[in-house]
């Protein structure tokens, strides 16, 4: 993602750039039950979805602030029967509109209506290349349906953009995943390694690959790149656990990303609800301008003043902003700490231990928990225990 350049600020008052990317998580309802979903564990308790009119207000105000990209996501955004109406309004406002979908619910009638409404782009997720693995990992029977949806996407002249979440169970047959993508005439394939948030974090022991698996998978991706040239672009994102420096999470807190949850929670990052003390504002109570420029949550990790050592005096802080706040919280116990992915972090040993364990493929102990599927039942049961 590119956007207006971020100028590192030396004063205590960070320069606030306009938001660029509005992510509308229309609903947490989803027909799939993916084990690597990043949605919050307690999603089933988050009710009271925004109305059509409330979403229109959110989009209008975010557009006035300068947001140009709009992602309709979820859960499964097609679960909302006003999606076409929202796309129509978004297009009228001048957003570039992206639908991020599992494809479940996308029939010819709806894709035609979305096209007419001005939808610019569809990203279709696949769980795997075979029916068995796709359906197992999403705990549904959706593979054949996804193939039909892929054909519909082509028929309506959308670029075919596929997203496949990778982990230890499907990395060994990444060649088959790429072959499937090519047979569906995909133009872009995002081979995105699992990021460990929400349900994926709960299932991390099951999902995290060995370093060797990643090296082999990347080599295969590179072979395909040479073979297929420009016909299909393969993006392979190495999971941050295996890097020495953290990702520039959200391109900096409160810098470009403005997420809105199904209940109207305004989120500086997808998982900001998990961070204590932010006082997450709600779009029902505040204008988007107040939320972006004035709210406690969006200012909390802006600039560099909040940083601890080693970030505070680090000459790379304007490159990675100290990494991911949620990861610092989950793995180091404090959202203001350095992301433990960084080799300079005093908590980096946590990551090394996780990677070491993942590499013990022969004598890997059984995970403590069974694989947990994202479902309303599991959500309610697992989060009420807390």
């Amino acid at each position, binding site marked *: *993602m*590119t*956007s*207006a350049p971020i100028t590192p600020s030396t004063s205590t008052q960070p320069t606030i750039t*306009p938001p*660029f*990317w509005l992510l509308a998580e229309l609903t947490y309802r989803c027909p799939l039950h993916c084990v690597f979903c990043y949605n919050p564990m307690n999603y089933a308790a988050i009710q009271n979805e925004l109305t059509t009119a409330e979403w229109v207000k959110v989009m209008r105000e975010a557009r006035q*602030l*300068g947001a*140009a*990209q709009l*992602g309709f996501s979820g859960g499964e955004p097609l679960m909302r029967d006003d999606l076409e109406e929202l796309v129509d309004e978004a297009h009228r406002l*001048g957003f*570039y509109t*992206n639908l991020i979908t599992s494809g479940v619910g996308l029939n010819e009638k709806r894709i035609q209506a979305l096209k007419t409404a001005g939808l*610019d*782009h569809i*990203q279709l997720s696949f769980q795997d290349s075979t029916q068995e693995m796709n359906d197992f990992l999403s705990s549904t029977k959706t593979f054949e349906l996804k193939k039909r949806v892929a054909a519909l996407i082509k028929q309506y*002249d959308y*670029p075919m*953009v596929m997203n496949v979440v990778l982990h230890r169970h499907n990395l060994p047959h990444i060649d088959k995943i790429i072959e499937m993508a090519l047979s569906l005439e995909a133009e*872009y394939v995002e081979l995105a390694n699992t990021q460990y948030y929400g349900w994926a974090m709960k299932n991390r022991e099951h999902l995290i690959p060995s370093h060797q698996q990643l090296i082999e998978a990347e080599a295969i991706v590179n072979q395909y790149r040479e073979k297929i040239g420009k016909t299909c672009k393969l993006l392979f994102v190495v999971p941050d656990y295996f890097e020495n420096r953290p990702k520039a999470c959200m391109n900096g807190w409160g810098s470009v990303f403005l997420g809105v949850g199904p209940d109207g929670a305004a989120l500086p990052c997808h998982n900001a609800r998990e961070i204590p003390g932010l006082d997450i504002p709600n779009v029902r109570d505040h204008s988007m301008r107040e939320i972006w420029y004035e709210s406690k949550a969006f200012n909390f990790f802006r600039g560099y003043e909040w940083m601890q050592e080693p970030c505070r005096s680090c000459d790379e802080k304007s490159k990675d902003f100290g990494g991911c706040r949620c990861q610092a919280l989950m793995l180091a116990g404090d959202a203001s700490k350095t992301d433990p992915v960084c080799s300079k972090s005093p908590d980096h040993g946590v990551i090394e231990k996780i990677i070491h364990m993942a590499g013990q493929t022969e004598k890997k102990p059984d995970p403590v928990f069974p694989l947990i599927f994202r479902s309303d039942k599991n959500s309610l049961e697992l989060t009420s225990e807390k």
Partner: protein
Amino acid sequence: MINLPEYPKLNRLFRLQWEEVQQAYVLLYPEGMVKLNQSAAEILKRCDGTQTISDIVTSLEAAFSTTDLHDQIVGMLQTAFEKDWIV
């Protein structure tokens, strides 16, 4: 030297539009945006699939009352072609 298309046309993945907040033309594409300078924007506006490169040069030289824009325009179009902005 790469072969530019005879009638350059904006790739259907990209949308060229004026952004009030940026005070600039931008190219929008899935999940991203490129901010354009004025000359790049004026060139891309004319990539509509009906004009040849020499039509575009003629049109821009007339619009800005100048000559010798050919090399600059071809250079920009080559960059745009490499980045898949135009087809």
